[in-house]
C-alpha cells in the first residue's frame, strides 16, 4: 500500500513567473523510506509543505494514508510528523517546555504530555539540557529536539525536510543513527536531502528532482549504476605512473583515466578493489601519495542525468526579495 501519493503537483509563485513544482508525482510505499534528492530550489520543501497541509498546490492532488490532503487537512495533521529545515521550536523556552507544549497541542492531556516529554528527552539524549532554553543548544541538539517534537504522537508517517543541512559531520552521523532507529520502528518516511550519501544511507528508494519535477527514481544502487558507480582514484609519483596505471587497469578491469599524476577507473567491487590495489602497489614498492574510493556525488548524479551541474534552479528576480520560494 502506498502511504503517500502526490500526483501531478503544480505550484507557481508570483502569478506563474516562478515555477516551483512542475507536474511532480511521487509515492512512498508503507513502511519504507523515500529520499527526495535535489539541489536548493528544486522543489523539495514545496513538496513537503504541500504534503504536510501547509501549502495548497495550484493543481494536482495528494493523499497521505489514503486521506486527501486538500479535502481533509485536519485528519492528515493528526497522522503526520513534520520536521523542517529550521528547528521550529520556541527558543526562549526550555526543551522540556517545548515538548510539553506540543504534547498539549496534540491533546495528550497534562500528565501524559509530561511523561512523553521526559521519555523523548531521554531517548534523544537531551535530559541534561531539558531545563535550559533552546537558545543555548548546539545545532545538533536543536535538530534532535525538533525531531522529538514531531514524534510526540508516534506518527506513522514522517516528513523530514533536510534534517542534517547545516550540521557538522558528528551531528550528521548522530542524526542518521536516530533516523535509522525510527525507521526500524516501522514509520513511513519521506526525507529530502541535498546529499547523495545521506539518501544512500537512509533511503530505500530515491527520487531525484530538478526544476520541480522528478527526473529519476530507483534504489540507490540502480541510481549509482546509472551514474557509473564508484571510482578508484590514486595519486603517485611521476616515476610510478606507468606501473600504477597498469595495476589499476588490471584490478578494475576497466580503462583508466589519467590526469597529471592521478589515475582513476570505475570499480564494481568497492573496498575489495581498494585493498587489492594497495597490496599490488606494496608488492611493486610503489607508495601512493593518495588513494581512495570516490563515490558519485550529487553533482555526478546531476551531470549524468541532466547534463548540467546541480545548481539553484529557481531564478529569483533580484528586484523583489519577498514571496519567492519558501
Amino acid at each position, binding site marked *: 500500500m502506498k502511504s503517500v501519493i502526490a500526483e501531478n503537483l503544480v505550484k507557481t509563485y508570483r502569478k506563474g513567473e516562478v515555477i516551483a513544482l512542475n507536474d511532480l508525482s511521487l509515492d512512498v510505499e508503507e513502511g519504507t523510506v523515500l529520499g527526495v534528492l535535489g539541489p536548493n530550489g528544486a522543489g523539495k520543501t514545496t513538496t513537503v509543505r504541500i504534503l504536510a497541509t501547509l501549502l495548497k498546490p495550484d493543481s494536482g492532488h495528494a493523499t497521505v494514508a489514503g486521506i486527501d490532503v486538500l479535502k481533509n487537512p485536519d485528519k492528515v*495533521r493528526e497522522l503526520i510528523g*513534520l520536521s*523542517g529545515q529550521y528547528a521550529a521550536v520556541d527558543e526562549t523556552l526550555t526543551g522540556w*517546555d517545548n515538548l510539553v507544549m506540543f504534547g*498539549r497541542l*496534540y491533546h495528550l492531556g497534562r500528565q501524559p504530555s509530561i511523561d512523553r516529554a521526559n521519555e523523548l528527552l531521554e531517548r534523544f539524549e537531551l535530559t541534561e539540557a531539558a531545563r535550559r532554553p533552546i537558545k543555548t543548544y548546539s545545532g545538533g541538539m536543536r535538530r534532535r529536539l525538533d525531531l522529538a517534537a514531531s514524534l510526540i504522537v508516534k506518527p506513522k508517517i514522517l516528513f523530514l525536510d533536510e534534517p542534517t543541512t547545516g550540521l557538522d559531520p558528528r551531528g550528521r552521523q548522530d542524526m542518521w543513527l536516530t533516523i535509522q532507529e525510527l525507521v526500524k520502528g516501522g514509520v513511513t518516511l519521506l526525507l529530502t536531502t541535498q546529499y547523495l550519501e545521506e539518501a544512500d544511507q537512509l533511503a530505500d528508494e530515491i527520487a531525484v528532482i530538478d526544476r520541480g519535477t522528478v527526473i529519476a527514481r530507483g534504489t540507490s544502487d540502480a541510481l549509482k549504476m546509472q551514474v557509473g558507480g564508484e571510482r578508484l582514484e590514486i595519486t603517485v609519483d611521476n616515476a610510478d605512473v606507468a606501473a600504477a596505471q597498469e595495476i589499476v587497469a588490471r584490478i578494475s578491469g576497466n580503462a583508466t583515466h589519467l590526469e597529471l599524476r592521478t589515475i582513476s577507473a570505475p570499480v564494481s567491487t568497492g573496498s575489495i578493489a581498494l585493498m587489492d590495489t594497495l597490496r599490488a602497489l606494496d608488492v611493486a614498492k610503489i607508495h601512493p601519495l593518495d588513494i581512495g574510493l570516490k563515490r558519485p556525488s550529487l553533482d555526478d548524479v546531476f551531470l549524468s542525468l541532466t547534463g548540467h551541474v546541480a545548481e539553484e534552479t529557481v531564478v529569483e528576480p533580484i528586484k523583489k526579495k519577498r514571496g519567492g520560494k519558501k
Partner: protein
Amino acid sequence: MKYAISDVLTITKRQLLQLARVPEILVFSTIQPVMFVLLFRYVFGGSIESDQPGGYVQLLMPGIFVQTVAFTLASTAIGLAEDMKKGLIDRFRSLPISRGAVIIGRTFGDALLNILVLVVMALAGFAVGWRPTSGIVQTTLAFLFLFMFGYALSWIGILVGLSVKEARTVQSVGFLVTFPLTFLSNAFAPTTGMPRALQYFAEWNPVSTMVAACRQLFGLENKFGATANSWPSQYPLETSLFYMVLLMVIFIPLSIRKYKNFSS
C-alpha cells in the same frame, strides 16, 4: 473543536512561560513608558502650563497609559512575525489544533502582559505624584478601558504581523502607525495649539478619545483635550467604546481569515 479552548490556553501559557524564562521581556516593555513618564513629568512638565489641581502629571499619566497599550499593536505584530520567520507557525499549522487558536492565544498572552505593564506604570505614576480622585470603581473601569483598547489593537497587530512577515519591517510599520497616533492627540499637549486640520484629526483620533475617557474616569475635568465642541471630545467614553468594538469587528475576522488562507 472540543479542544479549541485548551489549544488557545496552551498558546497563551507559552507566552507566560516566556515571561518566566526571560523576565527581561517585562523590563523592556515597561522601560520606555517609564522613561516617558520621567521625561514629560520632569523635563517638559515644568514648561507646560496647566491649571489642573495636582499638576500636569494628572493629565500626563492617562496619556502615557494609552500610549503604552497602543504599542501592543507593534509588540503583537513583532512577536507573530518572529514566530513565522522561525518556522514555529508552520509547526503549529501542521498540528491538529483549531485554526484560530494560535493567533487568539497570542492576543490573550499579549493582553496578560499588558496587565503587568499597566500595574508597573500605575506604580511609576504613583511614585511621581499621580493620584486618581474618582474612587475605586471608576479607576478600575479606566483600567478596563485601557486593557480592552490594547486588546483591540492587538488584532491589528496580528494582521500586520501576518502580512509583513519580516520582523524588522514589522517593527518599523508598527512604529509608523503608533507614533503619529499617539502624538497627534491630546495625550501630551492640548489640541488647541494645532493647526485646524490636525486638530480635527487629533480630536477624532481614538488615542485622544481614550485619553479623554481615562481622564474623565480618573476624576479630571477634561478641559485639556476638549477644545472644539466636536462629538468625540464631548462623549469620549462612548466614542472610545465604539472604536474598540469597531476595531474588533473589523480586524478579528480579517486576521483569522488571513491566518487560515495564508500560504507562503
